[in-house]
């Protein structure tokens, strides 16, 4: 029964308010990534649907382009590319007065040469004496640029700038870093739940205790071990397998914890019956537990995958920051610092890095949520 009471409307409005606030930042980024790169750094994304005023400086062509007509030397040129859609509204010939003239006016330089320009950017520069400089004088234009959206930024970012490769690298890191812990921890959790052995409870307590250890603590000791290992076996200390094991190590505690919680909720009788039938633990694991655990595995897979995909520090420390190994988050951080002027690379790069997590999120929301909720709510 839908209610149209005042409270219902108020709460809907309040909810709407929250939703709008929450989505604006991401929405802004998305719009920014589609904007023309010139416009990105001069105006906010909320102006993207209106025409923007742009001030530009152009140098006219130089002496090599002059032609003689009657008694004048003339240089003709165009300052806009075709189809830019920009329309000049005013221009100037000195940086002190960039809006001095309107379309159709004749501007006179100090050396008595004249220039006119039409609203599409075609200019004519006339002089009674020959032009002698290789580079022409400056022309200052103010023009109106229509809203323009483009996929060029995405093209540029995906194929240049190394983001395409970083995407692949991140996949090569995240996938094994999720599957390997799942494999190891499922056996581990099984043992902790249903096998009796000496020290089981201590081990369990140790796992829970290790939830406490901050990541940064382990960086240097582990990297040192890797290096010693590498020196002995002649392999690189920083490598993909190294990152996988590091992620496995950091995710061991939570994965085991979640898996064990799930396994505990499965009925014992099933297992007892199977044992009576002569099945070994491995048989039980493969034939009974695995099929039943698919939902739990899915949830944990998603959680761990996203954690690894979005990770920054582990990827920074355990991989070389070279194009063949750098991951998306590290690449993005690099761009965050150095591409202040090329905002289009930043926005698009960020969005590309978000596609996978967002896709997983929307497609598999149910499992994602279930994984998070596991253990947090009764029943």
């Amino acid at each position, binding site marked *: 029964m839908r209610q149209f009471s005042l409270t219902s409307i108020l709460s809907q409005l309040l909810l709407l308010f929250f939703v709008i606030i929450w989505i604006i930042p991401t929405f802004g980024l998305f719009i920014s990534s589609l904007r023309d790169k010139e416009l990105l750094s001069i105006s906010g994304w909320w102006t993207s649907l209106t025409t923007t005023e742009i001030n530009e400086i152009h140098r006219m062509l130089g002496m090599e382009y002059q032609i003689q007509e009657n008694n004048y030397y003339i240089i003709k040129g165009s300052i806009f590319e075709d189809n830019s859609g920009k329309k000049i509204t005013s221009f100037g010939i000195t940086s002190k007065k960039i809006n001095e003239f309107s379309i159709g006016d004749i501007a006179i330089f100090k050396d008595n040469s004249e220039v006119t320009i039409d609203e599409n950017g075609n200019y004519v520069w006339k002089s009674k004496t020959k032009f002698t400089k290789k580079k022409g004088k400056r022309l200052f234009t103010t023009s109106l640029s229509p809203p323009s959206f483009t996929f060029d930024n995405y093209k540029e970012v995906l194929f240049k700038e190394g983001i395409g490769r970083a995407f692949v690298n991140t996949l090569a890191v995240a996938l094994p870093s999720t599957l390997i812990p799942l494999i190891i921890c499922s056996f581990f959790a099984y043992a902790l739940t249903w096998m009796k052995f000496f020290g089981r409870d201590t081990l369990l307590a140790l796992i829970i205790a290790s939830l406490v250890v901050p990541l940064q603590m382990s960086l240097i000791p582990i*990297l040192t071990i890797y290096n010693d290992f590498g020196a002995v076996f002649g392999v690189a200390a*920083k490598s993909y397998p190294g990152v996988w094991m590091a992620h496995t190590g950091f995710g061991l505690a939570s994965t085991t914890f979640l898996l064990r919680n799930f396994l505990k909720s499965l009925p014992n009788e099933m297992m007892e019956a199977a044992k009576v039938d002569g099945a070994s633990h491995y048989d039980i694991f493969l034939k009974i537990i695995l099929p039943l655990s698919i939902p739990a595995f899915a949830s944990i897979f998603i959680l761990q995958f996203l954690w690894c995909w979005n990770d920054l520090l582990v990827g*920074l420390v355990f991989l*070389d920051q070279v194009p063949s190994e750098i991951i998306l988050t590290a690449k993005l951080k690099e761009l965050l*610092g150095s591409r202040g002027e090329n905002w289009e690379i930043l926005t698009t790069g960020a969005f590309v890095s978000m596609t996978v997590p967002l896709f997983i999120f929307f497609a598999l929301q149910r499992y994602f949520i279930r994984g998070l909720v596991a253990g947090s709510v009764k029943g």
Partner: protein
Amino acid sequence: MNKFIKILLATITSSFLSFSAFAGGHYTGPDLSGQKVVMFGPWLSPEQEIMREVGAIFEKATGATFEYGGSDSFEQQVMIDLKAGSAADLVVFPQPGLAANAAAMGGLVPLGDDIEQMVLDNYAAGQSWIDLSTYADENGKDQFNAIFFRTNVKSLVWYSPDNFEDNGYEVPSTMEDLIALSDQMVADGNTPWCIGLGSGAATGWPATDWMEDIMLRTHTPDVYDMWVSNEMPFNDPRVLEAMDVFGSFALNDDYVNGGSKAVATTDFRDAPNGLFTSPAECMMHRQASFIPAFFPEGVEAGVDYDFFYFPAFSTKDLGTPVLGAGTLVGATNDNPATLEFIRFLMHPEPHEYWMAKGGFLTPHKGVDGSKYASDTFRKLGEILTGATTFRFDASDLMPGAIGAGSFWTGMVDYTNGKSAKEVADGIQASWDAIK
């Protein structure tokens, strides 16, 4: 004559001479196919692309693979790697101080006599370069650990000659004139300066350059040397005086594009763009010789921009001091491919390649001077021959904890409103903490 004057004089002027051990032309190397050399450094775009192209020359000549990775939290990242022993084969140090730290940790290998000889033979004032790249290793023994690749001059102010002409401004030759010019610009409704300190985890370093240039212009060179070694404490009144001069530029909201608040939040690579906007956001930008690499595409040296010497006070009688620096390349292992790459960097070809791209200076005697990207760079020589005092960038010489740490963050705090005294005290405290 100060040993460093010799170095940098030679840097520019000797590039036109070809007295070197190399026949010139292209580098040829031994067959290193299947080997890989990895280099890690602070350069991001666009320099990292150029470095990769330089590496490609090596790859073609030897068959080895070259990879370069950069980070603007380089100073932190490299320490992780060095401590764990997993650093890249070659490390580009933006400062000798950091390289000395690395050597003291036992992270760098001695480059050996043959490379040392190459420096002596090919770099003008080679011995001075060798002195600057010799550090104590973990046993306290001095070793020659790195070569300088890419040097720069710092006491420069970049401007747009056209904008100056439009406004009737003249290039100032004394500091007093520069200050008067800045005031004139404000009176005319223009903004005199663009200053940006942002640089990722290295944010703050451009302010240290300002400080060093000012120290050289307000006190004698001996004071500068004592400041570097901390013989004179950082919170000495003479240093505070210099900081106040910097403050007269950076903390003056009328002087700086975006006001003093924008100083620390603007990236150093974005800051100079204010020279080229319409209307111009600023008229002048004080920065080292490598900055043209970050200017907008299409602007031309000598036409759209030029530089003048950051002048000295005419009343102080300290001559015309010049500040400079360079990046070093050190090796963390002695694999044949690694050391061969160092030898490759001693060949003129990589130098000439980067020279043609601009923003690159070198003391290498064997390079072909005509390969410089423009007359602008050749002009740098005039600044040097006119220099009466020369000093290497102080923060680069200080130990990493200061020169790549508290000095940077202290200057950021200063632009954010902290008092000069508090900042200097804090930096001195970090000096004390490492003694």
